[in-house]
C-alpha cells in the first residue's frame, strides 16, 4: 500500500500543468483578439466587448473541435480524482464537476453566438471564460486539498 502514496506526485504535477494550460489558453485567446497590436490587456478586453474579431464557421469549428475532446477529457481526468477524496464530499464534487462541464460547453459555444451574429458584443465570451477558468481553479484547489 506504501506505493499508492506515489500517485500523489503525478496528480500534483497534473494540477500544475493544468494551471499553465489554462494560462496559455487565455493568452492565446487574447492574442487572437489583437493583444499583440493593442495597448495592453485592458484595451484588448474593451475591444472584445465592443468589436470582437469576426470568426467564420471554419474558424469556429477549427478551434472548437480539438477543445471539445481536450477540455472534456482534462476535466474528466482531474475531476475523477475527487472519487478518492476523503476531505470533500462526493455530492460537492459532483456539483462542481457538472457545473464545470456546463461552463466548458458554454465557453466553447459562446463564440458561436458571435460567429452566427446572434450577439454583436463579446461580453458573453469573456463571461464564459471567466466562469470556466474560475470553476476549473476551484476544482484544482479541491483536488489539491484532497492530496
Amino acid at each position: 500500500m506504501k506505493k499508492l502514496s506515489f500517485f500523489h506526485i503525478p496528480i500534483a504535477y497534473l494540477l500544475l500543468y493544468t494551471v499553465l494550460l489554462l494560462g496559455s489558453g487565455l493568452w492565446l485567446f487574447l492574442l487572437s483578439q489583437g493583444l499583440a497590436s493593442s495597448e495592453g490587456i485592458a484595451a484588448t478586453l474593451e475591444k472584445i466587448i465592443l468589436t470582437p474579431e469576426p470568426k467564420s464557421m471554419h474558424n469556429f469549428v477549427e478551434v472548437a473541435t480539438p477543445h471539445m475532446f481536450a477540455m472534456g477529457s482534462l476535466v474528466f481526468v482531474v475531476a475523477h480524482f475527487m472519487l478518492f477524496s476523503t476531505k470533500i464530499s462526493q455530492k460537492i464534487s459532483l456539483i462542481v464537476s457538472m457545473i464545470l462541464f456546463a461552463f466548458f460547453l458554454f465557453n466553447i459555444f459562446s463564440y458561436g453566438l458571435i460567429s452566427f451574429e446572434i450577439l454583436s458584443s463579446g461580453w458573453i465570451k469573456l463571461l464564459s471564460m471567466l466562469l470556466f477558468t474560475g470553476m476549473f481553479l476551484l476544482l484544482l484547489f479541491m483536488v489539491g486539498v484532497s492530496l
Partner: protein
Amino acid sequence: MKFLVTKDLAHSRLLAYLMGSVIFAILLYLGLDVVLHGYVIGWDIEGINNTLFGNTETFEEPVLIDSLLLQVHIDLFMTIFALLILSSIYIRLHDKTGTVKWVLHILFTVGLLAPLSLLLAYFWSEAFVWVWVAAFLLWHLLAVIIALSLFPRLNFR
C-alpha cells in the same frame, strides 16, 4: 487511474497486454514527437535560432508568438497525458520505491521545463534555446527508458 491500482487485476493477462500496447503507443509517440519538433522548431541550434528569432541574411521572419504559444499549449497537454499514463504504470510495476519518487519528480519537472524554456528563449534570452534542447531531449529519453523498463515487468502469460 483507479483501474490500474485495483488489486484484483494484479495477475490479469488482459491488463498486461493493454498496458503493453499503450506503452508501445507512447514509445511511438515519443519518437514521432522528436521528429515533429525537428520539423516545426528546427533540427539544430542554428535552425532553432532561425525559427525563433529569424535570420536577416536569409530573409527569414521570426515565428509569430501566436504560433509558438499554440505549440507550447499543445505540448503541455500532450506531455501531461503521456506522462500521467506512463507514471501510473511505472508506479504500479516498480518495486524500488526510493528511486520511483525521484524519477517521477525529474520526469515531470523536465517535461514542464521544455515548453517553458521555449517561451523564455523567445522573450528573454537565446541561452534558453540550449535549455529547451536539453530539457526536451532529456524528458523524451527518460520517458523512453521508463517505458522500456516496464516491458520485462509485464506479465504476458
